């Protein structure tokens, strides 16, 4: 197997992009990544596109063809990858495996979701299809509902507080203020979060990531060729993916995502690193409790201490391990299929030292953590500076 490097990244603005279509977003992110990599489109061998639900959001399946077509890259192979909100992370992993195997050299791994061409109710309904339709959604569960069930149990078992969850939102909004691509560039307070309307208790509106349009791309190349294109290749040091039951009630733990633990274990092992070696992370904070559980499951603190770790400021930029410097899903936005790729974009920019006002100094090793559904899929990548 060959080592794989990221040689270019590109991102659209994240937000409610009323005047931009699915096709236009994808092209924008792709063109930026190709330009960043300093390659020519003709050099691209294949593409993997993470997308959760174009069928429900824009009534268009078979987007793999659309993307290759509009990029002017036919007839190269183009493949859509779906794993709910982990679609982007899975697309990245498929692309990494394809390069590592030697079957392709230069690959685009993209992710995209156009979510605002439907009304909010339709969008949340589309997202709910990532849960168990027969035995969760049928009985009245929603995504915030499922995470609220985890949050309530986390509070019960570990004494996690609503204030600690609110601090995740406050931090991520703060970080997003320094990210030009972010959906929200507004500071919020713990009180703002606590007083925001209840969604599914104990989750309130400002504990939730928003509905977002956006696309993201990274360009992969074999490590031995990466230096031809860039002086700052970022190595994909480890990749891990794991599955769990589709329904939350099928799991032995309601306060931990086993898929995260298993995916991280694999990624750490391949990369030859431990949680202590990680300098910064982008975690899947679709809800504030999800970030608290993620930093526990990824091994940055003991189980149950994620809330305390947040409260003590260890996860802010400049803290012991900055979490979601990009603003995360909460602040930057969560175009579900794009999120996993956008996380890699952020870590690449941080490791290159190009993150501007949100730069985490001296970062050498970063990690991305992307979750599908309530934890039925998780994918973790460890990225490392190539020098």
């Amino acid at each position, binding site marked *: 197997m060959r080592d794989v490097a990221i040689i270019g990244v590109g991102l659209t603005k994240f937000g409610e992009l009323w005047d931009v279509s699915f096709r236009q977003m994808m092209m924008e992110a792709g063109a930026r990544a190709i330009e960043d990599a300093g390659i020519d489109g003709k050099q691209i061998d294949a593409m993997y596109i993470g997308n959760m639900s174009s069928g429900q959001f824009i009534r268009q399946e078979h987007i793999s063809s659309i993307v290759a077509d509009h990029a002017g890259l036919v007839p190269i192979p183009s493949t859509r990858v779906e794993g709910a909100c982990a679609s982007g992370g899975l697309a990245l992993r498929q692309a990494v495996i394809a390069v590592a195997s030697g079957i392709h050299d230069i690959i685009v791994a993209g992710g995209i979701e156009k979510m605002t061409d439907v009304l909010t109710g339709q969008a949340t309904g589309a997202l709910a299809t990532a849960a168990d339709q027969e035995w969760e959604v049928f009985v*009245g569960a929603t995504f915030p509902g499922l995470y609220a069930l985890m949050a309530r149990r986390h509070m019960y078992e570990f004494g996690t507080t609503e204030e600690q969850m609110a601090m995740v939102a406050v931090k991520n909004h703060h970080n997003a203020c320094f990210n030009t691509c972010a959906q929200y560039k507004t500071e919020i307070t713990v009180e703002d979060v606590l007083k925001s309307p209840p969604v599914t208790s104990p989750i309130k509106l400002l504990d939730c990531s928003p509905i977002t349009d956006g696309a993201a791309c990274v360009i992969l190349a074999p490590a031995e060729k990466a230096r031809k294109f860039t002086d700052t290749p970022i190595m994909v040091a480890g990749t891990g993916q794991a599955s769990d039951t589709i329904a939350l009630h099928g799991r032995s733990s309601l306060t931990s995502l086993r898929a995260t633990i298993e995916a991280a274990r694999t990624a750490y092992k391949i990369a030859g690193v431990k949680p202590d070696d990680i300098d910064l992370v982008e975690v899947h904070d679709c809800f504030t409790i999800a970030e608290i559980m993620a930093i526990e499951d990824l091994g940055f603190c003991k189980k149950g201490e994620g809330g305390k770790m947040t409260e003590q400021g260890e996860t802010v930029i400049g803290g012991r391990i900055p979490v979601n410097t990009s603003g995360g899903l909460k602040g930057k936005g969560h175009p579900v299929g794009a999120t996993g790729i956008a996380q890699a974009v952020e870590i690449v920019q941080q490791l290159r030292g190009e993150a501007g006002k949100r730069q985490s100094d001296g970062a050498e090793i970063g990690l991305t953590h992307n979750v599908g559904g309530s934890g039925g899929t998780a994918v973790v990548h460890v990225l490392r500076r190539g020098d």
Partner: protein
Amino acid sequence: MAVPRFWREIPNRYNLVGARCGNCNKVLFPPRYICPHCRRMGKLEPYRLKRRGKVLTYTVVHAAANGFEDQAPYVLAIVELEDGPRLTAQVTDCNTDEIKIGDEVEIVFRRMGEDGQDGVIYYGFKARRV
């Protein structure tokens, strides 16, 4: 939910018919077709679960799922049944401030929804505090 898709699960939804594995004796619900513990060594047979359990966790849903708007706010819980399996269920006949973790519940028969005004009515299980 299309009529056949609902109809074929009526025994499961009305009467908590799951499965028991003759190999490992574990009770499975919602229904499965291969024992996840024994896989091909498993011997699944239909098993009707007892309608009792306790609340492991809950939430009060204010932003209702599609089709549940008229019931908001409603209580949703994960219930651990006496037979072992857990299920997600609405807690009916329950004020939003009454519920707590550990509450004993029974599984009752209620309306779950309908396929619009002209479509079929979906019946199924909900939990009720005892």
